[in-house]
């Protein structure tokens, strides 16, 4: 049981034939070389497979490739020029926000969403919003510092820069936690 799907992956139009049961994570890893997607549980809890689907973060391990026909997919490979990701990378590097690297792509993508939703949020909000991404190495200290530092730097840049954010960044939500 295979189908042809058409979708956009990291800005590129892609057409492929897939097995109905192939998860989006496996499809992206095999077909689009999106090996930044890591499988840590395959049941939606650990967050290592988090990517962006139609502008919203999602677990790629618990959706199917065939369900994403027509979707706009962004993995870490396609966010290299994203200003939030660039700042997050720098902050993770400076604050020892990674050790083995396995959770890191999912952490970066979720952190980008946190900054878009909550801006320069306090520590408790950041920790709560990171709850869906498990790290087994760092104890989260460096990660939380990195996200807060990045958010503060970006807020500072945004206030001194009149340009609107890129369209891939989701809109700011008033804190609802």
């Amino acid at each position, binding site marked *: *049981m295979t189908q042809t799907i058409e979708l956009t992956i990291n800005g590129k139009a892609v057409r492929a034939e897939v097995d*109905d*049961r192939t998860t989006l994570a496996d499809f992206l890893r095999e077909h689009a070389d999106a090996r930044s997607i890591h499988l840590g549980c395959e*049941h*939606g809890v650990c967050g290592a497979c988090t990517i962006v*689907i139609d502008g919203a*973060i999602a677990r790629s391990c618990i*959706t*199917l490739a065939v*369900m994403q026909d027509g979707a706009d997919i962004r993995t870490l490979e396609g966010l290299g020029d994203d200003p939030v990701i660039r700042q997050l990378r720098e902050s993770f590097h400076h604050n020892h926000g990674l050790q083995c690297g396995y959770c890191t792509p999912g952490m970066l993508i979720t952190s980008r969403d946190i900054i878009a939703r909550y801006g320069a949020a306090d520590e408790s909000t950041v920790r709560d919003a990171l709850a869906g991404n498990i790290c087994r190495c760092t104890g989260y200290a460096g990660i939380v510092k990195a996200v807060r530092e990045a958010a503060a730097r970006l807020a500072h840049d945004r206030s001194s820069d009149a340009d609107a954010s890129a369209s891939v960044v989701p809109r700011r939500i008033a804190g609802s936690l």
Partner: protein
Amino acid sequence: MKPAPFTYIRPQRIEDAVAQLVEGGWDAKVIAGGQSLMPMLNLRMVSAERLIDIRRIPQLTACKDLGAEVRIGAGVTHARIQQGDIPDPSNGLMPKVASRIAYQAVRNRGTIGGSLSLADPAADWVTTMAALGATVEWHGEAGPQTGPAEDFIQAAYTTNLGPTDVLTAIRIPRLPREAVWGTYKLCRKTGEFAHAMAMVIRGGVTRAFLGATDGAPIRLPSVETELQRAPTCDAGLERALGEAMETDIANSSRELADVRRWQMRTCLVRATRMSFGIPELAVSA
């Protein structure tokens, strides 16, 4: 942990989805957000020969404010409710509940209809829809049907839905302007399923429920009586709530272990305090 093979079908209309279920029998399953079903398929705890994707059927994601009630399509995601993208008949209760479901990545795709259809007793919407006195709508071979959310769940993972029924919408009566609410759940860590839960609504209507039980939420009529007559939330009310809760559990002939009743009582008292506007105690050094 890869799913067993199946055929994927995406019908355009509800009627076609139902027809697929009829044709497929026990081996046909409906999928919307997939946040609960896909883990089970990956684990091969559930099998499907036919997977029917209803996520994009337009009538399932539509919402309508009908004044005295709001009708929410079953395919509306937790995130849309959390973010206030849809009309809120609950004076803020529903966005609050939505914001505490699992994690953002799951909220972005999981749906209220999926949550109610699966009927995991710990699922937040199961208790919330009962507390709000909502009406569930579904569509099957026998055409469209409705029923109260409070009676929708028979037991864990068992609802009024037959094998060829698809949950289509939930109609939630608008709370009176003066109605206040409180909700409290016990999770061992952020985002995991609750082990105990309580929800109270007061002011114009009075409804009190325990959730995250072994099955359907438990309505607490004696508790509601106490809530109706209490002008303030003091030690006396809290004591009375505990006793009333025990009475209601005993009358419900539902089994709840000692430890669980202890924790449920805590949730009930804290939900009640919240409804009285008493901020939750923030414990810090």
